[in-house]
């Protein structure tokens, strides 16, 4: 068991990667075996992630040096700096890992029947597992160039999955937009990595953080990295591609794409807090995140109110919800370096933002899955053409209600507990943030109620006489996520103590991240 945990950082990335290339081979022989293999490998990854999470919370940061004689030998004998690729798992990384493992398992289960009528399913699962590996790599890596590579793996497979249903014209357009944005973003990241490498001859995040000077070139690199990651995370004003790409993908993939947005958000936080950290002009960077976060919240929700396409409507809500996290963590960043403010409200604001990532990662894929279930049964994504589906699809209706109440922050559901944490703490920073947050929340509830009314309520429509409840695997996938929501609702303090606070502390404590790679500073 101890050996397994020692090697789990690389196993969590390697298992989906190996399975990705096994699935086409096994899929040629037998479909059932292939499906079982995909589910079992992802379930095993969930187990590994939870074991690693427990270990990280108890024993602190875990590093894994690839190719070294022992995994904790970060700096080879005779060298002053790390030269090997290092995976570094701290509270924040493993927090993202938990989310990604659960959502990818649910998405794989959902896919079993959601894409059952499509051709080329073997390739679908290969791409899905590659995307899982890419996402885990982004979250766990401690190396900038490695971050770029995994970002590309996740984006390329993501774009191919968006365009997977080639019989529709809009999927091709959405996939094309996504790959163009991803290519530009990752080239910007690569350029920034080049700028940093030119000055410090280092690629390891911890090693650069130790020697970074915040010169003009560093500022350019910071700007490039932030623009690239916020663009990929879908922050206003770089959000225009976001609903186009997310609304046309198969619903299971849309659920996963939301988490890749979170992974890019995580990368932006990692750059701000860990790479630049104490050298950063924190109030300026914090305010930039806050202002654009507020814009995302408000513009996202106002655009969502008049959408007719159910998936598009939810995509705009995703932009709006991402705004809460930018604001929460942005407030923490703005007061970084001031221990008094951090203790007073900074840490709470960051915990709120990070908690909201977890909640959003449960209810938004759930809502996207219900949207996919509606599309599966009715063959349309247009809300105006639906109606009276509550009579036929009882499970979907109940799960949609859970998701709606949670996203609107209705007490006592989990969306409320993270939003109240954000509202209370950012109010002390600036009251306008809380006011915008509450207005956004009200508009969210209003638009989701409207969508609920037009899709589920009313008399049965004659054209949907034949509609049945969605297949069992789709219900199971949705129930997994709903169970996550219920669990967080029932035990918020348990979740906060075990995952959220370690994550927030990991971001604040730059020193620990550096020490884990470079050894104690003499």
């Amino acid at each position: 068991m101890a050996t397994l945990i020692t090697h789990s950082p690389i196993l969590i990335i390697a298992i989906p990667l190996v399975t990705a290339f096994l699935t086409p081979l096994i899929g040629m022989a037998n479909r059932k075996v292939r499906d079982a293999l995909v589910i079992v490998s992802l379930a095993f990854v969930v187990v590994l992630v939870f074991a690693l999470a427990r270990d990280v919370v108890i024993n602190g940061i875990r590093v894994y040096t690839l190719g070294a004689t022992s995994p904790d030998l970060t700096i080879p004998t005779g060298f002053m700096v790390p030269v090997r690729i290092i995976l570094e798992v701290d509270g924040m990384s493993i927090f993202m890992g938990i989310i990604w493992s659960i959502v990818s398992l649910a998405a794989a289960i959902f896919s079993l029947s959601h894409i059952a009528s499509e051709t080329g399913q073997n390739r679908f699962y290969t791409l899905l597992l590659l995307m899982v590996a890419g996402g885990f790599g982004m979250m766990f890596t401690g190396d900038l160039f490695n971050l770029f590579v995994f970002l590309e793996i996740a984006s390329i497979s993501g774009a191919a999955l968006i365009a997977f249903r080639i019989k529709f014209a809009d999927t091709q357009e959405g996939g094309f937009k996504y790959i163009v944005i991803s290519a530009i973003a990752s080239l910007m990241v690569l350029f920034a990595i080049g700028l940093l490498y030119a000055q410090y001859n280092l690629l390891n995040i911890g090693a650069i953080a130790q020697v970074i000077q915040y010169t003009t070139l560093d500022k350019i690199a910071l700007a490039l990295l932030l623009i690239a990651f916020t663009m990929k995370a879908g922050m206003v004003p770089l959000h225009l591609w976001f609903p186009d790409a997310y609304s046309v993908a198969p619903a299971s993939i849309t659920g996963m794409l939301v988490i890749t947005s979170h992974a890019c958000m995580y990368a932006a936080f990692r750059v701000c807090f860990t790479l630049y950290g104490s050298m950063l002009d924190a109030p300026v960077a914090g305010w930039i995140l806050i202002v654009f976060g507020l814009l995302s919240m408000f513009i996202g929700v106002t655009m969502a109110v008049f959408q007719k396409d159910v998936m598009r409507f939810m995509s705009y809500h995703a932009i709006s919800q991402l705004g809460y996290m930018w604001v929460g963590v942005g407030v923490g960043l703005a007061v970084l370096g001031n221990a008094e403010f951090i203790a007073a409200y900074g840490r709470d604001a960051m915990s709120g933002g990070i908690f909201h990532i977890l909640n959003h990662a449960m209810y938004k894929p759930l809502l996207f899955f219900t949207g996919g279930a509606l599309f599966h049964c009715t063959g349309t994504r247009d809300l105006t053409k639906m109606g009276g589906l509550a009579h036929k699809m009882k499970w979907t209706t109940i799960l949609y209600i859970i998701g709606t109440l949670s996203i609107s922050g209705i007490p006592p559901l989990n969306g409320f507990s993270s939003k109240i944490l954000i509202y209370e703490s950012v109010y002390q920073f600036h009251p306008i943030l809380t006011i915008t947050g509450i207005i956004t929340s009200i508009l969210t509830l209003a638009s989701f109620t409207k969508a609920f009314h037009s899709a589920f309520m009313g008399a049965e429509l004659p054209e949907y006489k034949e509609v049945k409840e969605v297949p069992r695997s789709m219900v199971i996938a949705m129930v997994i996520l709903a169970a996550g929501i219920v669990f967080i609702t029932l035990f918020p303090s348990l979740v906060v103590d075990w995952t959220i606070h370690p994550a927030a502390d990991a971001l604040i404590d730059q020193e620990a991240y550096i020490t884990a790679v470079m050894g104690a500073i003499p």
Partner: protein
Amino acid sequence: MEYIPLNFPFLAAALLAGISFYIIIFRKNLIKLIMGVGMMSSGVNLFLVALGYRAGGNVPIYTDVPEGPMVLSVPQALTLTSIVINVAVLALMLSMVINVYRHTGSLDSEKSRKMKG
């Protein structure tokens, strides 16, 4: 090679990146857009290779090193990886454009657009 001013490769990289940005933002033809992305990756790759270049340096392939400075090998490794990734990205983009053309019969990004708002 000492005839080339040291800043020249960096200027060329910046120029490539600038032109490609212009192409990506203002050109309507999807194939031209893809060419823009390809040019941008060339610009970034040129920048990376130029970073590691040392005037009169040795090629970093010897185990028994001759006298003199050696060209940095890490940026070249990064560039190779980046080239491989970009080939995959460009191939995927082109295949999607083929499908866009099949569905809409146009490569103009204004005409083949279905989604607005």
